[in-house]
């Protein structure tokens, strides 16, 4: 009998030989050795190791998951493309709220009311949360929305910026970023929250039943109340 072909031997790695093949393998040391080598090759392939992803893979993935709304720490809600949240009215209302967080920063919002300059911390809020979050940019983004998918993308982007801003706000409030002063001042914070409550209420007038905006308003009012309580507990010593 002629030698077994390479493909026949490859089949016999985990297949059953026919009578002629079995007979040949018994008498041909070359084919038997080749089959054994193929079996070792197959075992070696099954033992190839797992491979650790490149450094930075998680960071990149995490930011993508956040931008997709799949990581929603402290903000458990997801917006799906085509949902009613992707309406232009909602976008405008959401943008109005987000701009107060991200466009100018809390300190800058407080400044006109209190006659104090915007703090560096507030600048950090703006840069962290808003990126290009000026009113002009957001308006331009709204004008560029042509399809429900684009609208949904913008909603997700705005929502993420809101979440980032809120996280930053909490960091500033707790002083966990290592900065001192600035928006850590309860009076400035209260003034900023007061403005934010007004902005949220204005946005809700546009979309009264929107759960996201109502959530923003509720949490902002709670923050405002907590800040007021702190101020009253310190006997107003932190006022100017």
């Amino acid at each position, binding site marked *: 009998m002629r030698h077994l072909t390479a493909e026949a031997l490859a089949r016999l790695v985990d297949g059953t030989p026919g009578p002629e093949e079995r007979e040949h393998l018994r008498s041909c040391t070359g084919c038997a050795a080749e089959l054994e080598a193929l079996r070792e090759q197959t075992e070696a392939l099954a033992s190839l*190791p797992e491979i*650790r992803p490149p450094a930075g893979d998680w960071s990149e*993935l995490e930011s993508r998951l956040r931008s997709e709304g799949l990581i929603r720490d402290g903000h458990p809600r997801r917006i799906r493309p085509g949902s009613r949240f992707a309406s232009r009215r909602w976008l405008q209302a959401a943008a109005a709220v987000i701009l107060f967080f991200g466009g100018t920063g809390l300190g800058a919002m407080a400044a006109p009311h209190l006659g104090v300059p915007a703090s560096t911390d507030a600048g950090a809020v703006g840069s962290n949360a808003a990126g290009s979050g000026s009113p002009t940019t957001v308006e331009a983004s709204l004008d560029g929305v042509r399809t429900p998918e684009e609208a949904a993308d913008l909603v997700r982007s705005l929502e993420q910026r809101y979440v980032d801003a809120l996280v930053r706000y909490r960091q500033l409030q707790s002083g966990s970023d290592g900065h001192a002063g600035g928006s850590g001042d309860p009076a400035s914070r209260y003034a900023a929250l007061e403005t934010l409550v007004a902005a949220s209420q204005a946005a809700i007038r546009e979309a009264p039943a929107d759960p996201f905006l109502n959530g923003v308003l509720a949490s902002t009012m709670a923050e405002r109340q907590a800040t007021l309580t702190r101020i009253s507990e310190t006997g107003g010593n932190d006022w100017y």
Partner: protein
Amino acid sequence: MQDASSTDRAMTESDLIRRACDGDGSAIRELYERYAPRVFAVVRRIAADDDTAQDYAQEAWIRAFRALPTFRGDARFSTWLHRIAVNSALQGVRKACTREKRRVPMPESVPVDPRLGDPLLQDRLEEALDRLPDGMREVLILHDVEGYTHEEIGEMLGVATGTSKSQLFKARAKMRDMLRTDDPSAQAGGMEACAT
């Protein structure tokens, strides 16, 4: 005292999945840490290089977390995830139309817990795998490396079971040929020893 990370490790997979469905970043991170090397390994072998593999792997993770609320636990999570990773990589390759053949040594990524005693053999296997034609390589990876059946492979690749088998046998033979050619010591003996 038990710290947060050990608590996470002790957490059952179903708890992690439930929390990940709710958008809990630490649960998502824990699932990633558990399975990232396995996901990356399969997409890296299907892809041409580390960068492309990373794109495919990230796409797989995003698809998996999007679809996580639909995961019913009929299969093991690792099996479900692995299937998504394979499909993402295969779709990525199809989308790219032709896989640019590059002799990129495997890989910049670091192998985890090498099971092969001989690192040189591992390198030679990975290199030979990379040199196989696309169809053969995919079938060989899915069958001999990842352990899928021909029926599953046929479903994933959209080919008949018989096609999967014939590609596998060709791929094994070609691999063997490449490895023998690359290793002079393996060329001595072999078929020449056959008397018939």
